[in-house]
């Protein structure tokens, strides 16, 4: 089996050369950027909103134990059942157990990155359940048998033509490639599923401690139907999703929609605080909430990177990341791609096998600037690099740096190396970009930066000499203090 790093390199190499892919992603994200900036401008104080959100998230995770207990107690008081899953396997077994106990056949799911994280569909399908993704983008990638491309826009890498072919092949129904008609095909198919499903599974964007509710953000209404029609509802939510108070949503809902999709508010923001209550006409008879740790407490224990748990999974850092925009979401081979994925995946799956992700960054800081909850993303990438090298030093890298230090600390050696460099550059022209080039890894796709013909010091000395000559020629002395 290829290592995650080798697979990443291979896919990245293919996709960065795929100009159609790049064009598609740039077009989609260009539209997003226009809308996002328009909505940001409507805030009276966007920066203040980010600060406030970061402060609330920081408060929440620094009292996570207390808020989780409060959340669970209030939710259970209304007849819901709260399950605690220390790791992915525990969460899978809990959900599998509920589906088996209810004698379920069909399960309808709304989009949940936590479910992707624990590979829930594989488990349920192997146990014989029919699982249908109801979010349109997730439905499309499920039909293709591939993971989502992006945590908010799962099918953004596909054209309408490809989706039409997919629907024709898998559903036998594809009238045209108009997005409207294709959406209506999915609507017809999925309507039947909501009505016949025994269990509905959702994720959650927030868990409100004060009132014991989960909050689900969506645009399509698929989560609304998933939570309304089946007799059993299960929500899988990461423990870091807690917000202290209900009214905090007045800030977080518009922040999430603006950063995530360039909307002021998403189509449906829905709170669920229990199964059907006395006097209510519908709703599930049972409501299970599964709280997932799965290494989140490891991130919490890292005092430098604890703020990675602020993440509200808006995807803003992916959208602005120059690496993501070139290598694409599936290249990462992780549940969470992009900058946030490169920060949390080494915690979730181990730094040793995933250390290539923090290195696949230009450290430009666009992610940190875009993050609505002010996660210090690009510094966390640097910290991962440091930790990776401390764990497992690379001898030639250490040697190279030691040599570099030796050279820059000795002016004569430094000048000599510059002179040699200029000379080498002349010779380099003969092999540049070919396999004989010692810098081939760089030059095969990029320009080699050129050394200036003159160093700054040389230039300065020359300039001073010229001036002195001119001044003395004009009969002026140097200006005294």
């Amino acid at each position: 089996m290829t290592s995650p790093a080798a697979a990443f390199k291979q896919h990245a190499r293919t996709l960065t050369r795929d100009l159609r892919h790049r064009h598609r992603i740039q077009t989609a994200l260009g539209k997003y950027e226009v809308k996002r900036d328009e909505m940001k401008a409507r805030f009276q104080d966007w920066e203040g909103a980010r600060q406030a959100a970061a402060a609330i998230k920081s408060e929440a995770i620094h009292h996570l134990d207390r808020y989780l207990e409060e959340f669970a107690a209030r939710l259970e008081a209304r007849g819901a059942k709260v399950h605690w899953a220390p790791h992915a396997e525990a969460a899978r077994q809990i959900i599998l157990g509920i589906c088996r106990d209810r004698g379920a056949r069909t399960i309808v799911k709304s989009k949940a990155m936590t479910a992707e994280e624990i590979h829930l569909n594989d488990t349920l399908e192997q146990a014989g359940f029919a699982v249908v993704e109801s979010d349109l983008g997730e439905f499309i990638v499920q039909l293709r048998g591939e993971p989502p491309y992006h945590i908010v826009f799962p099918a953004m890498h596909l054209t309408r033509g490809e989706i039409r072919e997919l629907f024709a092949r898998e559903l036998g129904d594809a009238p045209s490639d108009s997005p409207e008609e294709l959406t209506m095909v999915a609507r017809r198919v999925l309507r039947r599923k909501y009505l016949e499903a025994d269990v509905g599974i959702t994720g959650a964007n927030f868990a409100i401690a004060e009132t014991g509710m989960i909050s689900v953000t969506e645009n399509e209404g698929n989560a609304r139907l998933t939570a309304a029609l089946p007799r059993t509802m299960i929500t899988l939510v990461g423990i870091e999703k807690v917000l202290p108070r209900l009214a905090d949503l007045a800030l977080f809902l518009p922040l999430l929609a603006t950063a995530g999709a360039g909307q002021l508010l998403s189509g449906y923001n829905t709170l669920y605080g229990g199964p059907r209550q006395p006097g209510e006409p519908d709703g599930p008879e049972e409501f299970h909430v599964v709280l997932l740790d799965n290494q989140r407490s490891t991130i919490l224990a890292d005092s430098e990177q604890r703020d990675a748990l602020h993440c509200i999974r808006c995807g803003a850092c992916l959208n602005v990341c120059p690496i993501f925009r070139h290598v694409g979401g599936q290249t990462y081979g992780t549940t969470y791609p992009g900058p946030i994925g490169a920060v949390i995946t080494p915690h979730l799956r181990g730094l040793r096998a995933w250390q290539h992700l923090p290195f696949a960054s230009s450290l430009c800081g666009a992610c940190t600037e875009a993050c609505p909850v002010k996660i210090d993303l690009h510094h966390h990438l640097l910290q991962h690099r440091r930790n990776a090298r401390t764990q497992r030093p690379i001898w030639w890298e250490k040697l190279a740096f030691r040599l570099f230090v030796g050279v820059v600390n000795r002016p004569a050696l430094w000048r000599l190396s510059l002179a040699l460099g200029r000379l080498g550059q002349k010779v380099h022209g003969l092999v540049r970009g070919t396999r004989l080039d010692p810098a081939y890894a760089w030059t095969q796709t990029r320009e080699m930066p050129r050394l200036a013909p003159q160093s700054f010091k040389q230039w300065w000395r020359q300039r001073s000499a010229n001036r002195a000559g001119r001044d003395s020629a004009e009969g002026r002395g140097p200006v005294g203090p």
Partner: protein
Amino acid sequence: MNPRDTILARIREALRAPAARHNAPAPSAAAGDETAAPPSRSFTGLLPRVGPGFEDWVAAFAAASRELRTEFVLCESEAQVRTELIRLRDAEGWQRVAAHAGPRVKPAVEALGLPVWWTDGGYDKHALEQCDAGLTECDALVAQTGTVVVTSTSAGGRALNVLPPHHVVLAGREQLVPDLPAAFALLAERYATAWPSMISFITGPSRTGDIERILVLGAHGPKKLTVLLA
């Protein structure tokens, strides 16, 4: 140790080290510091501006509705609400509608002269799916965002406002609030002693952009949303 205690113990252990952040604002609520003031929760000055008066709120709700493609009608009277409903019935050829027996909705729906599927006290979901429109009341309209706030107790359950292809909201002027903080304050005041199992902030008809980021209305929920404010 049971799984609950395992997770809580891990969290407490993890929080023993204080946060060390590179560019952090002063941690106002660091681990163990119970005296630190909680962060500010006054969001009104951060969010988009809404004018002070009722007319401003109506204008803001109307502007947001245009963007969202919500049909918004400011009615002079209850009589005009009924006229609007009849217009919708005839324009869309409604055969059967669904509603709940709320004091505002019931008389208006009965005046339509159509078979009505009432969701109160339980219903057949397949029959509800066949209805041409779902008519409900709401808890609030939010001017700032063009949002309709409904709950499982005030609007005929969870499915009525999302399963039929057209959701029609009948609201009163006193229900219009300026912004999101006001909407949450209203909910807390109304329900703090007995929360409904579902509260939904509905902002426009159901929508998706999952195919080439092109907007399509009516992904799974209603293709149309109409708000009649009297």
